[in-house]
């Protein structure tokens, strides 16, 4: 009887250690996901939803913990990929902006916003002709920089 009891405890103990390890991994993945969400804000909204495996709080078994861990790992992977894609897009847009600033006539009517390059605030760069139609015919192109976010006073005036 004592031997049987010991064997049962050992199995339970091994499983408990596995659950402890899974919980540790869930904690680490949650921290990673949190830092990715914060890094992406406000440029990108990352989907962090991981379906609940229980309808009410309970101590999860190995299978459920594995499911949570795997879902979180998938989410972290997706978030990293989304962020990497966004970084690449913003880098390409910054390079485009540099080229546009150097030669506005080659990028007629192109408009790049601060959002497009991952910069905070409002505003955009717009390649447009000087003096309207005349400039368009003469090839006098320039990049116009917008004046930024609307002032709160002006917004209030519009709302009045």
């Amino acid at each position, binding site marked *: 009887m004592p031997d049987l009891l010991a064997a049962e405890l050992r199995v339970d103990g091994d499983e408990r250690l596995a659950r402890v390890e899974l919980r540790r991994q869930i904690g680490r993945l949650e921290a990673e996901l*949190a830092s990715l969400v914060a890094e992406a804000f406000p440029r990108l909204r990352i989907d962090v939803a991981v379906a609940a495996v*229980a309808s*009410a709080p309970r101590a999860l078994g190995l299978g459920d913990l594995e499911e949570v861990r795997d879902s979180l790992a998938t989410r972290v992977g997706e978030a990293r990929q989304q962020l990497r894609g966004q970084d690449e897009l913003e880098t390409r847009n910054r390079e485009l902006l540099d080229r546009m600033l150097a030669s506005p006539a080659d990028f007629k009517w192109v408009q790049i916003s601060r959002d497009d390059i991952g910069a905070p605030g409002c505003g955009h760069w717009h390649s447009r002709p000087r003096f309207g139609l005349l400039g368009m015919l003469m090839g006098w192109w320039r990049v116009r920089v917008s004046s930024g976010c609307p002032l709160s006073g002006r917004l209030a005036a519009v709302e009045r």
Partner: protein
Amino acid sequence: MAVAGRSTEPEPRSTFGWVAPRISAEFPGLGISWIEVEGRPGRSPRPVVDRLAETSNRFYGAHAVHMRERPIPWAYRVFFRQIGLDPDRTRTPVEQLALDRLQDGAFKTHGLPGDALTIATIETGIALRAFDAARIEGALCIRDSAPGESLPGRPGKLAHGTLVIADERGPVGLLFGATGEGREVDRDTRRISVAAVQVEGVPQIAVDEALWMVAGVLEVA
């Protein structure tokens, strides 16, 4: 000499509840402690409303996004995952308050003791619950539900193994969920039990601070 806004009374002593050994073995940092304070529900007095407004003014969208990176809110998020809940659907208490703040434009007053719990939760990140002290028998504990148990006033039985806050009579509420009928604070309440649920990674000093803060706010009232 009394400091403005602070009482010279000694801080109320918190009582530690117990956690069922099987649950404690799974979640070593899990704990519950509570204080009992004189108080009855009602409208919050001006100092409490002002403090709530001041707390609102210090809280922005960026705080909400970065909140999950801070140690205490992160610890609750992790614990939610570990007990099968999705903290982006069933929000942790502090994140629910943050979301309400962003949606409503301010921490809206809900009277006492709700406002006291809001202030303390936002300041410390600790998950707090209020019960009618007169209807709590003996020590509070965290345990898994036994077969056939149910939450007072709620239809249906609890799934076996549901984590609950219980007293000596039975479950008084789900851990991070509904409170049993008759155990919540209502108009007949004269003493309030404020309970803090501690999870792994949450320091005891933060729990004590949260409980003292609630007691302080209720004292002002």
